[in-house]
């Protein structure tokens, strides 16, 4: 009785006792709160901006992705006269003849006296031939080039109506958008076949990469106990049965989610000149640390979740030259949890435990990337993207605490 009375009096005296904090204490708290608030806002804004930018660019790309790829030839690139010795397929010549005298660019070319050589009696001039102008000293080199071009098979020449009416008729059949010069351009585009862009778009590739998702670590105390249940963040709804055994239910303090890491391999198959489809397999590790401050348990738990997944993405090229390629990507990933591993520290003792993970984790992602060509068959790529992870009743991880995440993928692509 004496002890309880003693405790009661001490409690009464101390419950009313107050200690005034320093005036700088609030400033420090306010700064910390503001920093966290800004971090959250910045993260949210960046996510939204990235998503909108990707969506807008994809929409623009789809809008612009028409069949018309051949544009008017540049006078600088196609400042050409075909010499006597060049062998141009008759079909191409035909188009050139038909176009002769109608193009202002061609008329301009014809006025350049230094470039005009002795030409076969038909005076074939072309902007689209991609045959180099041939002063006599350069004639030989040009011939070599021409021979390379001439390797292609030319359809056997049919007997054609060479009258102006016949030529016009063939032009009309070719369509209004296809001038004679363009026909030659197309023809040579097909013939040369050495454009890197053509090669890259028409071949499958294998990509091997690793993926990290820089994420905001959380630091919180969440009350889940009998007297405090019903909070907005109900851990027991989120965690699986496995996790319930190892993650404290009543009070979780200082929960920290570390950066997820993935490695994977992917195959991309072209669906057209611009679009390709990629799929493969990846392996992901999710790390979390829980410091348990429950009234019933006191321990630190290090959780590692192992996932294997299949991503399916569509890639759309934005730009491609000999050194670099830019593209957009979007798609989904389905992942199966393989194993949840727990390392538990209790009173200086260490023990391990774990269990399998049920269900599937679905996510959507969109991003933009760049690939730097290391050599003819290899590229180093960097794919930043945004991913949204759906709530599929998976164990608590950074994905459940922060479903919208930035991902940065880095790897090599091998063009087959």
């Amino acid at each position, binding site marked *: 009785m004496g002890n309880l009375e*003693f*405790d009661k009096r001490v409690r009464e005296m*101390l419950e009313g006792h*107050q200690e005034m904090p320093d005036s700088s204490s609030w400033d420090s708290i*306010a700064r910390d*709160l503001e920093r966290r608030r800004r971090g959250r806002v910045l993260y949210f804004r960046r996510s939204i901006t990235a998503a909108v930018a990707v969506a807008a660019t994809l929409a623009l790309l789809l809008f612009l992705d028409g069949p018309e790829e051949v544009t008017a030839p540049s006078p600088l690139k196609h400042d050409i006269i075909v010499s006597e010795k060049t062998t141009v397929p008759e079909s191409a010549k035909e188009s050139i003849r038909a176009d002769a005298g109608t193009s202002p660019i061609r008329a301009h070319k014809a006025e350049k006296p230094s470039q005009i050589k002795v030409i076969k009696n038909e005076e074939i001039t072309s902007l689209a031939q991609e045959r180099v102008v041939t002063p006599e000293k350069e004639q030989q080199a040009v011939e070599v080039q021409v021979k390379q071009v001439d390797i292609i098979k030319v359809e056997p020449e049919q007997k054609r109506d060479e009258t102006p009416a016949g030529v016009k008729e063939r032009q009309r059949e070719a369509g209004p958008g296809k001038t004679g010069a363009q026909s030659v351009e197309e023809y040579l585009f097909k013939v040369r076949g050495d454009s890197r862009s053509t090669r890259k778009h028409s071949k499958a590739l294998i990509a091997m990469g690793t993926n990290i998702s820089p994420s905001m670590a959380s630091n919180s105390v969440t009350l889940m106990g009998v007297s405090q249940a019903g*909070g907005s963040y109900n851990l027991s709804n989120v965690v699986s049965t496995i996790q319930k055994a190892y993650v404290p239910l009543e009070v979780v303090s200082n929960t920290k989610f570390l950066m997820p890491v993935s490695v994977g391999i992917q195959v991309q198959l072209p669906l057209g000149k611009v679009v390709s489809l990629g799929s493969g397999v990846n392996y992901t590790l999710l790390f979390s640390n829980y*410091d348990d401050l429950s009234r019933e348990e006191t321990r630190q738990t290090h959780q590692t979740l192992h996932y294997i997944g299949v991503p399916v993405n569509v890639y759309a090229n934005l730009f491609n030259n000999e050194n670099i390629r830019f593209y957009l990507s979007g798609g989904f990933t389905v992942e199966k949890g393989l194993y949840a591993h727990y390392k538990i520290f209790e009173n200086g003792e260490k023990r391990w435990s774990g269990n399998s993970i049920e269900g599937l984790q679905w996510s959507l992602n969109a991003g933009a990337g760049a690939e730097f060509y290391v050599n003819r068959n290899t590229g180093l790529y960097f794919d930043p993207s945004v991913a949204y992870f759906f709530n599929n009743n998976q164990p608590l991880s950074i994905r459940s605490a922060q479903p919208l995440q930035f991902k940065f993928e880095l790897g090599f692509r091998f063009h087959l």
Partner: protein
Amino acid sequence: MITSKTEFPDEKELLRACLKQDPRAQRSLYELYSPKMLSLCIRYVGERERARDILHDGFITVFEKIESFNGSGSFEGWLRRIFVNTALMSLRKGDVLKYTEELSDSGKELTVESSVLGNITSTELMRLISTMPAGFRTVFNLFAIEGYSHQEIAKELKISEGSSRSQLSRARVWLQDRLKEKGR
């Protein structure tokens, strides 16, 4: 219940504004409870500087997790619990509780008379408690002030219930001796 002068008419309004992350409300809440919570932190860790750090971490937690207060109990009770947990976490990280002596329960509880408190002020009592050995202080705070049972303390501090009883008993005697010395 609001006991100090703020621009918010009652606690409900104040908490509602805090839920919206209103900086003025947060400051009001801090001004309202920080003196009591700092006192609590000093009681647990014994040092003012360390208590300040706990006060900081505790309020950050409060403002970030205020939505988990469901309003069924007293807000101050919820607040105290967060600060107690934060203080215990700090003690644990500093390995203070790890070396808490595992005392055997002699089975015989030493009795302390409340009269020894005499006319001592709360400030003097605070100073005495803050100089207690960490193990005694933690058990005494949890049992005598927070109302934990020995079973709960044993689980919290990973000691036996007997050791919890024993530490409490010795903490009372320790305090009584210091109070008597002071009274002479």
